[in-house]
């Protein structure tokens, strides 16, 4: 049995979680997930300004804190922190190790960044049709900022077999970070679909960090203990594909069939065919059982063959947006906020700004649940102590969005009374990136695994 822990569910997650995972109980592998759909375009922006940027910088701080424990306990670490620049990320990690006087083997998995190869593939007939809309990439070709292939777990296993203590990847399937060590430790072959699928299910259960161990859990959430000290999830994996989800003893949170199930149904699409680069996993095939306190056992996962394509995540510039807000206080907070939104919409209309989208919401009344929340009753609306009016616009024309940002503040003196601007000043104009999911035949791209040998070896 090997223990594989998650210490980071997204870029911006707790900086202490990785340290807790290596210090508060036994683990063999620590996995850190930094990349979301939106992350690659941010990294691209950073790399365009600085060729040594384009990876998750927070990861280097994490390494600075966990490296002595990793080496002392021989815990191996796998992170997709490389983003669009795994080599620069490795250099930064090695600089930290050198400063600490430690010698560590850091591998990279790259080859996923095909931003500069798109035309080559387009010329060879790959259309990169949008998986949601069916449109060919040519529609937005000139706006593309980054394109990354989702690789699987085998390159990670290869890096581990090469002796790497730390494996830094670019884009790969999130669950591959967890499946990689299983393939390496148990010698699973590329056609052992059931075992590979079990690794994917295990990876999916822990890849979002504490969301797999009682965080953001609706089932009896008020009874979940010590969320301020929540333990991140850990997989105890067995060679036959069986596994247990658990967390370190003495930490907060909860690992129950309910909390694990919430994570397993999170963002999975068709549960019978959860497609990954290494296999297809059937989320309707297995059983979950409580196997002691904070232990959930999963058995019987079925899988199928992988498809002949890799998924490609392409980000492209899609214009600009700005969002501002003001707060209205009792009495009639709701009616005032509604009036504020109406006035703002009318002013924008009169200015004749070229906008692609205009949207207002009343926070504190119905912003989150929208129409499903229905309008508050007149009695409730009249009693609300305050309502935040949030107003946003989007346009391909930056000047139009700039002009909009000057309209919110005046509302404080020229609109309904008892209002505060929340001290935020004018809203900022942001460039917005959109996301274009596509496919590429596997034979056209290959992961590049680099495992340098230690100087001392």
């Amino acid at each position: 049995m090997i223990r594989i822990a998650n210490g980071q569910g997204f870029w911006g997650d707790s900086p202490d979680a990785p340290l807790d995972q290596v210090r508060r109980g036994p683990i063999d592998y620590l996995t850190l997930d930094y990349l979301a759909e939106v992350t690659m375009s941010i990294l691209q922006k950073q790399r365009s300004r600085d060729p040594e940027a384009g990876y998750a910088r927070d990861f280097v701080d994490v390494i600075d804190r966990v490296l002595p424990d990793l080496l002392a306990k021989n815990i191996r670490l796998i992170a997709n922190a490389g983003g669009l620049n795994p080599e620069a990320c490795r250099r930064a990690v090695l600089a930290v190790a050198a400063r600490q006087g430690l010698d560590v083997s850091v591998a990279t998995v790259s080859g996923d960044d095909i931003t500069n190869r798109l035309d080559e593939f387009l010329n060879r007939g790959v259309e990169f049709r949008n998986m949601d809309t069916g449109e060919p990439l040519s529609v937005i070709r000139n706006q593309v900022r980054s394109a990354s292939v989702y690789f699987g777990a085998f390159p990670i296993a290869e890096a581990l077999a090469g002796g790497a203590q730390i494996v830094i990847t670019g884009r790969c399937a999130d669950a591959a970070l967890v499946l990689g060590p299983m393939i390496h430790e148990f010698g699973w072959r590329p056609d052992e679909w059931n075992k590979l699928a079990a690794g994917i299910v295990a990876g999916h259960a822990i890849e979002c960090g504490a969301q797999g161990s009682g965080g953001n859990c609706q089932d009896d959430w008020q009874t979940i203990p010590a969320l301020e000290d929540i333990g991140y999830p850990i997989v105890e994996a067995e060679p036959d594909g069986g596994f247990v989800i658990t967390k370190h003893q003495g930490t907060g949170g909860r690992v129950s069939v309910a909390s694990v199930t919430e994570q397993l149904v999170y963002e999975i699409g068709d549960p019978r065919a959860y497609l990954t680069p290494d296999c297809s996993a059937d989320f309707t095939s297995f059983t979950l059982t409580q196997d002691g306190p904070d232990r959930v056992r999963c058995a019987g996962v079925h899988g199928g063959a992988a498809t002949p394509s890799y998924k490609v995540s392409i980000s492209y510039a899609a214009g600009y947006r700005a969002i501002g807000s003001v707060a209205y206080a009792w009495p009639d907070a709701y009616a005032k906020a509604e009036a504020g939104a109406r006035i703002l919409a009318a002013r924008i209309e009169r200015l004749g700004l070229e906008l692609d989208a205009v949207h207002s919401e009343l926070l504190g009344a119905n912003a989150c649940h929208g129409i499903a929340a229905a309008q508050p009753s007149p009695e409730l609306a009249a009693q609300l102590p305050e309502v935040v009016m949030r107003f946003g616009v989007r346009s391909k024309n930056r000047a139009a969005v700039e002009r909009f940002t000057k309209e919110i503040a005046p509302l404080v003196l020229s609109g309904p009374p008892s209002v505060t601007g929340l001290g935020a000043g004018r809203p900022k104009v942001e460039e917005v990136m959109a996301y274009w999911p596509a496919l590429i035949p596997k034979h056209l791209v290959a992961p590049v695994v680099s495992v340098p040998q230690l100087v001392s070896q």
Partner: protein
Amino acid sequence: MKIRLLDIAHSRSGDKGNTSNIGLIARRPEFYSTLVKHVTPERVKEHFAGVCLGKVERFELPNLSALNFLLYDSLDGGGTLSLRADPQGKTMGTALLRMEIEVEDTQ
């Protein structure tokens, strides 16, 4: 008898591009068939009228006493484009729990 889904189910939601993904889980295995019977794609589409502009697909996971819903064209363009306070539909799961269904007293 009229009940709210909140009484018999919990949920978690997220996004894939402009598609909202809502997992709906029965609080007890014996409530699962009630979810299957009443929480149809049509009901969900109607519940999210004005929010879900595309089709609704439903998948059954009897092993987890859960249903998984895909609500297409529901996130104002998706996580990075959206002007909403909840651009990734993280709270749409609880919005679904507001749904009321009519059940036999024996259910």
